[in-house]
């Protein structure tokens, strides 16, 4: 029944993160609050990580099956990426974005409590399970972050404070996220061959995963095509994230997805 304790961890994390952001926001030359702020954010991450570890032990299977379980990993990756980017490049705004997004995913889990379900269907019992899911969620987190950077860039364009560094950062993130996305897709193909007999069957989830992949591929090529244009790629990057979200969550609601082999319940 370990999900019953989830709110304790989620709420302490949310409090720690908001305290952390507040401290980092207030930190200036006079007030030395930056370090305590960073530590608060780190503690928040550790609290969720601890929950995942205990959940894993309790479930006796990797907690990567249901949407709620994948949201936990997403929260972790997103906040870690936000913290690392902040430590390295001092982007306060982006740290706030990632933390707000991570909190949003925690809130979804708080509002839609998960079934505590130990079962793992035979098709998911494979050595490919963990690398496939981890690589995918990591890439989703990095690509979400790139879309936040894009939205931030559009905001800066609007206020005429845009500088080229923003889109360069978005480019880097897309390359890294796309690398993981490619690995996730290919791992998925190799696994599908083992589990279902063929590496590609145009299952709705596969189709949308491929479409997500093509969207980011398009962004990468468009940037080479017209490096001078800023607004179009920024919009494209924000929209590509919507395709990604459809692939991740929306697929269950699409008319074309009635017989998907990728619907494992959860909500």
């Amino acid at each position: 029944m370990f999900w019953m304790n989830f709110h304790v961890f989620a709420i302490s994390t949310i409090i720690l993160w908001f305290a952390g952001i507040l401290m980092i926001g207030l930190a200036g030359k006079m007030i030395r609050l930056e370090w305590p702020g960073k530590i608060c954010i780190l503690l928040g991450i550790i609290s969720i990580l601890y929950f995942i570890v205990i959940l894993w032990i309790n479930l006796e299977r990797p907690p990567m099956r249901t949407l709620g379980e994948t949201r936990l990993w997403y929260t972790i990756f997103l906040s870690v990426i936000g913290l690392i980017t902040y430590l390295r490049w001092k982007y306060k705004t982006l740290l706030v974005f990632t933390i707000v997004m991570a909190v949003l995913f925690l809130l979804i889990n708080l509002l839609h409590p998960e079934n505590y379900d130990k079962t793992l269907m035979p098709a998911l019992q494979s050595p490919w399970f963990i690398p496939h899911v981890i690589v995918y969620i990591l890439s989703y987190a990095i690509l979400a972050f790139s879309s936040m950077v894009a939205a931030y860039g559009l905001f800066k364009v609007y206020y005429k404070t845009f500088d080229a560094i923003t889109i360069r950062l978005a480019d880097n993130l897309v390359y890294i996220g796309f690398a993981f996305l490619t690995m996730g897709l290919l791992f998925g193909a190799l696994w599908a061959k083992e589990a279902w007999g063929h590496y590609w069957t145009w299952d709705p989830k596969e189709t949308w995963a491929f479409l997500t992949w093509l969207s980011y591929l398009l962004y990468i090529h468009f940037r080479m095509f017209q490096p001078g244009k800023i607004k179009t790629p920024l919009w494209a990057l924000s929209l590509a994230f919507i395709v990604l979200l459809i692939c991740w969550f929306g697929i269950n609601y699409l008319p074309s997805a009635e017989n998907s082999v990728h619907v494992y319940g959860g909500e």
Partner: protein
Amino acid sequence: MIVLELLLLGLILQVLLGGKHFTGLQWPLNMVAGITLIILLFIFHLFFRRKPFIKWLSSVPAAVSSITFFAFVVFLLGFIPQQNPDAPGLIKILGLSSIRNGWLLFVSGLYLLTCLGLVILRRILPINRRNIGFLFNHAGLWIIVFAGSLGSGDLIRLTVQLTEGYGSQNIGLDQAGNAVSLPFSLKLLDFAIDEYPPKIGIGNTKTGELVDDSHIRLSLIEEDQQYLINDWKVRINKILLNAYPGLDEYISIDSTGAASAALISVRNLRTNSESEGWISCGSFAFPPTFLPVDNDYVIFMEQPEPEKYLSLIEIVQHDKTDTVTIEVNKPKRVKRFSLYQLSYDEHLGKWSTTSVIEAVKDPWLPVVYTGIIMMLAGSVYLFWKGNEIRKE
């Protein structure tokens, strides 16, 4: 512009040749088509690369246009329900409910292969550190799309239904239901299912809804454990995994048709009323048993979920006989075929003596895997490149 023209071409071909499904070419025609494409690409590259149009085809704008076109077709494929017999007439005429083997996907794929192929030829030399990642990604993708689509005509997927106690069999059914013979024969020695413990829940008999205390409404039960579901405290006194209903209790019997049953006691924490009795998920042999906990609610047991299922199979080839175990995610290779555990008789559940095996032969698989490995190497390069730009 060219995208619009190709889009129209795809749709026109579809309408003209409509009804005819593009099932893919079979050996050796697919190889001939593939080699023709490769030769054409080489001719374009070697003799016409300075012609503006051919030059354009290997440019970044052409890449953008071909990805856009291909993505658009994939979007239609992902959005419009496929193989839907009730699709509106126009969608059917344009082939939009069978895009997978339609001309639109063919034309967009061919355009993608052309642009991608020409850019690979243009960039293949010199092979150096800067170029190798580019080649891995582009050539890897080209090989996957090329071999995946040409090879689809040679892909053989046969389902073989085997039953314990019957003799060996060398006939499988393809997706159209035609009988095809295999170069070996199979005999099912044993089929076994391991199940998770059963789950219990409380449901409203009038509305049919589950009591929604989501954390535990359906949890695996264990003997001598207590479960709190809303206001009810449920205690599991005894679990029988294989049982038949007797006169007033369940009796442990380990034979066909037996199902899980549990003796439970339930106490309502608000009213303090108690009840005790048996529940069972039932099987094809007898109906389930519920325990009423008050006027509106009953406690019930769900059918246990399979944890794993496997078939012990004897494979007879003309010179030798092997015995193998086939399990989900653990296929076995025999003579260029891979054997997969596909399903079983779900009506009989754990008492099924029938196992459905899928035999798959895909001669192009090594080529596709070469492309996949190249792209995996290429993605490592992308990761490294992403880091490199950042350092500038």
